């Protein structure tokens, strides 16, 4: 399909090429169509169905699609339990995301110093990510045992035997702020992943930039602050989005550490309990839709932004 063959080919070439592309497109479309159809049904179709249930009066085992408008949503916004859920989610998200970003960046900066055994440490820090939240939760349930007196165990026992009594606390059973402690296992699990993101970011910064800065007389601290960190901004944004949507949807970790209890309730647990324990299907669907919207608020601008970036380059 070379354009330089004859004059004729120059004229016909693009037309034939366009035809070719269409055929390729058709084949591609045929190949992906099963997954597109499955996606349409099982993702978007079910989202639409949930949306429909969320504006219905469905309570009990039998479907009831009586239209009630936004009543389920209004009731949720007036529901003290949902207020607790939102508050808990905010606490968890702030502690978890900040914790992961700070620890992840710290570990990445340390590993970037070119020390011996970097590969070993990298795997070591990344390893917790291979474990499911349930396993993490069960282990940390033992570690963060709030029992006092003779029955002290876990981290509290370690602190006591090391003479660090001021660190002994009641962990997730702490009134009002228990949720912040639930974030600790989550940070333990995900900070290694954040480190990997940052490390990749650090490695992609050309050495020349650092050298140029050094030649200009910048100190090492200045190089990190003025040259490296600004280059890491896109990585931070990516990490923020990934960690943020994990924390909005958190469910399994809390169930494993604390079970179902009001003080550590989040929207996902409320959704499960009210739907399958209480048969309030309409209310459960409304919580699901609100969860989806909250994740959407976070993710959609990001997708839009990256797509624009990619088109720009």
């Amino acid at each position, binding site marked *: 399909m070379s354009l330089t063959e004859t004059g004729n080919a120059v004229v016909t070439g693009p037309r034939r090429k366009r035809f070719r592309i269409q055929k390729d497109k058709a084949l591609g479309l045929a190949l992906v169509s099963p997954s597109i159809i499955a996606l349409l049904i099982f993702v978007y179709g079910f989202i639409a169905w949930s949306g429909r249930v969320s504006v219905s009066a469905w309570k*009990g085992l039998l479907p009831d699609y009586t239209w009630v408008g936004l009543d389920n949503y209004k009731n949720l916004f007036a529901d003290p339990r949902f207020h607790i859920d939102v508050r808990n989610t905010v606490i968890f998200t702030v502690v978890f995301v900040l914790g992961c970003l700070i620890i992840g960046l710290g570990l990445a900066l340390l590993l970037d110093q070119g020390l011996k055994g970097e590969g070993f440490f990298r795997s070591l820090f990344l390893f917790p990510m291979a474990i499911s939240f349930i396993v993490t939760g069960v282990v940390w349930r033992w570690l963060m045992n709030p029992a006092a007196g003779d029955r002290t165990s876990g981290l509290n026992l370690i602190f006591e035997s090391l003479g660090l009594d001021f660190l002994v606390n009641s962990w997730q059973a702490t009134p009002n702020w228990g949720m912040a402690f639930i974030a600790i296992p989550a940070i333990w699990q995900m900070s290694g992943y954040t480190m990997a993101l940052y490390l990749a970011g650090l490695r992609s910064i050309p050495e020349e930039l650092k050298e140029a800065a050094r030649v200009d007389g910048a100190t090492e601290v200045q190089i990190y602050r003025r040259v490296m960190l600004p280059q890491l901004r896109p990585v931070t944004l990516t990490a923020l989005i990934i960690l943020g949507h994990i924390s909005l949807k958190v469910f399994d970790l809390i169930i494993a550490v604390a079970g179902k209890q009001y003080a550590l309730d989040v929207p996902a647990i409320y959704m499960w309990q009210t739907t399958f324990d209480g048969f309030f299907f309409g209310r459960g669907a409304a919580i699901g839709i609100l969860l989806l919207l909250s994740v959407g608020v976070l993710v959609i601008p990001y997708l839009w932004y990256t797509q624009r970036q990619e088109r720009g380059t």
Partner: protein
Amino acid sequence: MTKRIVALLAVLMLVGAACASEDAETTTTTTADATMEDTVEVFSWWTGGGEAAGLDAMIVVFGGDYPNITFENSAVAGGAGTNARAVLATRLQANEPPDSWQGHAGQELIGTYVAADQIEPLNFLYDEENWLDVMPETLIPLISKDGNIYSVPVNIHRANVLWTNPTVLSDNNIEVPTTMDEWFAALDALQAAGMDAPLAMGEQWTAMHLLETVMLGTMGYEAYNALWDGNGDWSSAEVTEALNNYDKLLTYTNTDSSALSWQDAGQLVIDGDAAFNVMGDWAEGFFREIGSEPNVGYGWAPTPGTNGIFQFLSDSFVLAKNAPHRDAAIAWLKVAGSLAGQDAFNPVKGSIPARSDGDRSLYGVYLQSAMDDWASDDVAGSLTHGVVANDSWKSEIDSALGAFLNSRDVAAFQAALVAAEGANA
């Protein structure tokens, strides 16, 4: 290229057709099964421990009585029945009911499955098998709606049991309390003697379990029952008094309760870290399992204020409407309600038979005392375990209780309980 696309589409269609024909085959097999009366599918969440062993023992009895009926055990593990109930809900919505399934006797079954028209009344079976003569009279209204009995209780557990540590009590010269006031006096004495948390409690559902026994103990049999059958008043002074008692009791409990399972809380009593624990009588099986002796390592009594009342819960089996194998399902229910079936199941599960004519020699010393009470006491239902309130109502009470455990605001709690009754509609 076009040919290739056509070929590809053809392949896709073939795959689709293959899947479709596979579906068709499965459907045919199912319909074929439905015409043969030799299988019964029974759905439960009994997948481990004494429960599964008890079910197996009952299946053996069933196999002896009905050798031509294959027993299909569709048990779903996990979440103390939560997972199983979610699976069951899905199957019922898809119109594929098992022939019979397990459920807590009472409103949990009635509110969910009778309201959805999924199960059949069983009065005819009670008449045929003369079960009304062998089951307590006060039990029947609790498992009926509008005069229709909807399930066959296999076992009975008692909810209002106060477990005590006899050594701790005798060391402090404390008698087992029989009224709320005696109980508070005993708890005060123990705290004065240096025991910070003489009443052991576990996670949130055990707090609800304590609540229901305190309500029964404070309000008495009639007023407690009235709350659930619509004749009571949740905003009454009696309820306020019960909630105040509950609020006071919580001050004697361990601070780490939210992190403890019911076993952990029971263990505190056995170990002498606490003097009292309120838990259903499945705790007795656990105490034996960890090597404790009845009347030595642990003692028991009705919770204060509930002498002469048996607050029960029960696992029971239902008959599905449109059951694919109706006759086989009825055969299963006959075994579940029979003396042989119940005496096979209960000694293994660690509960007492719902029938009052069980063979006492098969049961341990605690269960024998429970059998005596079951035959003579007034029967009240448990809230936590699904007898008196349907799931929707219970889950609203659970939310209200969760809020109360954090705020300890009795007035707000009572207001939330009044509102929760609306979920019963």
